[in-house]
């Protein structure tokens, strides 16, 4: 039987209410954490091997350890709920279906990092989600889980929900901080890193919703139990966002290391149409290199296995693409996104995303020359690793992989003077 950690309460009726959560034993683990030394909590999370679920996969416990030990400034916890990576929609489920598990995770984390202030930065488009989450926060305040005197312990913990205005770049952690401070969402140059100089110039830990929501289970069952799930350094379970040409798109929880084949057939119900087999898979949200059908069918969904295939688990937004889809069109859709979402701060990203997007669209619609096509490789080389944040790389990775793995389709387009298909998608 598959271990369910994050989606444990998803199917309960009224799972978003405090009463339901408490009936299931909610906030019990937090009370236990309050009896522990904060360092012991951090140690337990380190032991679990829990890695950041936002995309980068950095070990959460290690990150918490970066806060300067003798800081005189307040420490902040920021929850990154600006879930804007195309193909990713897992945090929404947690916030809508089990908001109190997130809040319990926040309480434990705040206790562990000695913070009393948490901001949840939720993306602007998640208005209905925000309402559910806000209701949960209000309930928690009323019940004494949040506020000046948390569960009568004398410890203060406040949670504030902040709504973004719809910019992808505000999901980048320092862009998020700028936006939270009321400024334009421009990622900050590092060093200094947020754990040292973050929100309002104070030490700040920024974690994804899913990461923090995993914390209560880890504390309840112990870091070792969590580390026993999954494979190697990819411990625990993960919410996979299955989308694309499949029978049953949705969020599925599975241990890391699950083969893609199993995820596709057993969870997502297989391909949408029997006559259209698998063509390609983007395994970790739109920013990661694409896999061909052959590669994907052999792939295991965990950090290391996908890295070996030259791609990434990212946010586990698995986009499944069927045969018959125009890959040029698919890529053009992605580059348009990045060109639109580039914050415009760094030169290579500001100008490069726009230029690459222009060329890809001209290949799709007709008008591009072979020289231009050849140029894309060089343009993307100049964008890689030369910017403040990874948005330029996020644009370059799909472009390079599409060109490498589906280059023949681009050449067909060039010869045909545009897309050979009248309907780009079947």
């Amino acid at each position: 039987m598959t271990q369910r950690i994050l989606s444990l309460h998803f199917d309960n009726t009224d799972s978003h209410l405090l009463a339901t959560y408490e009936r299931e034993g909610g906030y019990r683990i937090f009370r236990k954490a309050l009896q522990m030394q904060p360092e012991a909590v951090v140690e337990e999370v380190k032991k679990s091997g829990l890695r950041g679920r936002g995309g980068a996969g950095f070990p959460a416990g290690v990150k918490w350890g970066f806060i300067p030990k003798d800081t005189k400034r307040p420490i902040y916890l920021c929850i990154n709920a600006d879930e804007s990576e195309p193909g990713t929609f897992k945090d929404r489920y947690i916030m809508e279906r089990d908001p109190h598990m997130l809040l319990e995770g926040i309480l434990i984390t705040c206790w562990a990092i000695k913070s009393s202030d948490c901001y949840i930065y939720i993306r602007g488009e998640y208005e209905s989600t925000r309402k559910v989450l806000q209701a949960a926060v209000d309930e928690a305040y009323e019940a004494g889980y949040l506020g000046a005197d948390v569960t009568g312990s004398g410890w203060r913990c406040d949670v504030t929900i902040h709504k973004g205005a719809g910019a992808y770049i505000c999901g980048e952690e320092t862009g998020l901080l700028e936006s939270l401070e009321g400024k334009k969402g421009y990622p900050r140059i590092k060093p200094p890193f947020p754990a040292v100089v973050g929100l309002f110039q104070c030490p700040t830990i920024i974690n994804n919703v899913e990461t923090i929501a995993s914390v209560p289970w880890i504390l309840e069952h112990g870091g070792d139990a969590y580390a026993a799930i999954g494979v190697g350094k990819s411990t625990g379970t993960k919410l996979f966002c299955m989308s694309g040409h499949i029978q049953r798109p949705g969020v599925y929880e599975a241990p890391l290391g699950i083969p893609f084949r199993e995820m596709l057939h057993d969870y997502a119900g297989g391909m949408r149409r029997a006559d259209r087999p698998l063509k390609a898979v983007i395994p970790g949200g739109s920013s990661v290199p694409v896999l061909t059908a052959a590669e994907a069918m052999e792939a295991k969904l965990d950090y290391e296995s996908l890295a070996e295939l030259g791609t990434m688990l990212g946010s586990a937004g698995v986009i499944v693409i069927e045969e018959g889809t125009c890959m040029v069109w698919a890529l053009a859709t992605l580059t348009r996104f990045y060109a639109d979402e580039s914050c415009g701060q760094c030169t290579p990203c500001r100008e490069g995303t726009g230029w690459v997007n222009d060329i890809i669209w001209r290949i799709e619609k007709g008008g591009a020359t072979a020289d231009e096509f050849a140029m894309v490789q060089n343009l993307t080389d100049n964008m890689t690793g030369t910017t403040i944040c990874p948005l330029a790389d996020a644009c370059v990775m799909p472009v390079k992989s599409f060109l490498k793995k589906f280059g023949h389709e681009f050449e067909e387009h060039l010869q045909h003077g545009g897309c050979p298909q009248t309907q780009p998608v079947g």
Partner: protein
Amino acid sequence: MPKIRIDEHELEVGQHENLIDAARRVGVHIPHFCYHPALTVAGNCRQCLVEVEGVPKPQIACNTPLRDGMVVHTKSEAIQEARRGVLEYLLLNHPIDCPICDQAGECRLQEYYMSHGLYESRRNLDKVHKPKMIDLGPLVTLDAERCVLCTRCVRFCQEVAGTDELYVKERGHESTITTFPGRPLENPYSGNVVDICPVGALLSKDFRFKSRVWWLKQADSVCTSCARGCNIRIDHHWNQVQRLVPRYNPDVNQHWMCDRGRVEYRSINEHRVTEAQLGGRTTFLSDALGHACERLEQLDGDVVVLLSPKLANEDLLVLQHLFRTLYPVKQLVAASLEPEQPQDEILRRADPHPNTWMVRALGLAGDVREFLRRSGARALLVIGDDPIGWDPSLADALDGYDMVAAALTNHNATAAAVLERHGCLLPLATHAEYAGSFTNFEGRVQRFEPALSPYGSALAGYELGIEIAAMLRRGFWPDGESPEQVLSAIWKQLLPAGSDLPEVDWENVPQYGFVPTWRRTARPRSVMVGDTADDAHSWYGHAPKGGADG
């Protein structure tokens, strides 16, 4: 002190020194747009890429912390290629309208294209079009297409001016610098954004279309619009000042100057008194001077002289020597009615005169109205000041004198009043036309160099003093052939004994000026106590401990 190596140079660096600055010290120029030593590091232009040994990716020099033993390469093939790549992106949507751009000749895009670019354009699509000729404020206009979005101007308004007028709207390649609705860029330092703009995006409305920068000749000078004495550079062409730009001085004005100082040059170019006038006729300077000196001889000191606190140290030294010792006059005052200006914590000083300190040190301060109305002398000589301009009611006071003479830079109200009374008007040079020095509000002596040749037959204040002394046959001629030697001699020979003044080796005044040891703090002396020529000697003989004003 950490030691690092940049290419072939080994050097010691400060703990918080920026790599770009450190490299500059050893003559390695790391190209950059967004970095400015006086602003926070933005790290957005990505042009300053360097290779740091042990780090896989190219790093931006502006935000690379310096570590002991660090080895930096700036000339490797990979770095040249990376810089070329960034430059191509910067120029991608740039209109390349250099022939009609005022920045051409001092544009970083041009410079770096020649040093790092030299590629064929690969862009065959339409460029992104943005608004042009955006009126940002009274002094500044923006061409958004030329902008490289380095945000130096935004940071200047945030961090130096503290007024936050500029920001970047939109995002990605649509990003545009702009102001907030109804809040134009009108802080008193707005002109600086034009100087720090590395490209032709922000341009001065005042300088635009006036001259190509490669025609401009330059001279180091000091701003005369207030007592701060900001270091400036006079850019001139056709013997006209084309613009004034700030010159770096860490002790006075950093990299900046105020907008008022920037337009101060207009009085150098316009409405100048270029020739002498006597009895309503234009005449030779020597004739006018000769006539004036004849009258002075006859009057035998029944004269009052009004100098200006805008005159240079050397002018004041010579003229006070002349009118106190060689040809003692009834009263000698250096004062002006020019009203005080707004003062702030950044640069601007309330006192609108560049040399009030020296006036006070020489005991020349006084009240202009008192002086003009109650002097009781038969002749009046005004040098450099415009009392009637600041208070037209004073014109009547001039009728009380048998003779009025004035040496003025501009055709102002005082010049008009003198001409009306058929007096003697002599042309005076501005500080842009001779070498000298000013003493700023904190006692700092700063040199200025000549930029223009004198207008017409204009003389500097000290030259005028020497001429008059010679014509009165009470002459002195400070030893020296060249103007520099003369100026040095003025300091050596004319320091009033027992005065407050330090010895200044004029020829060796350091680049950023210096604060000599003033023997006694120069104090304001607003009342004309003992400032008549007769008393002057005694005043210097036993200087009172506190002036009349405390």
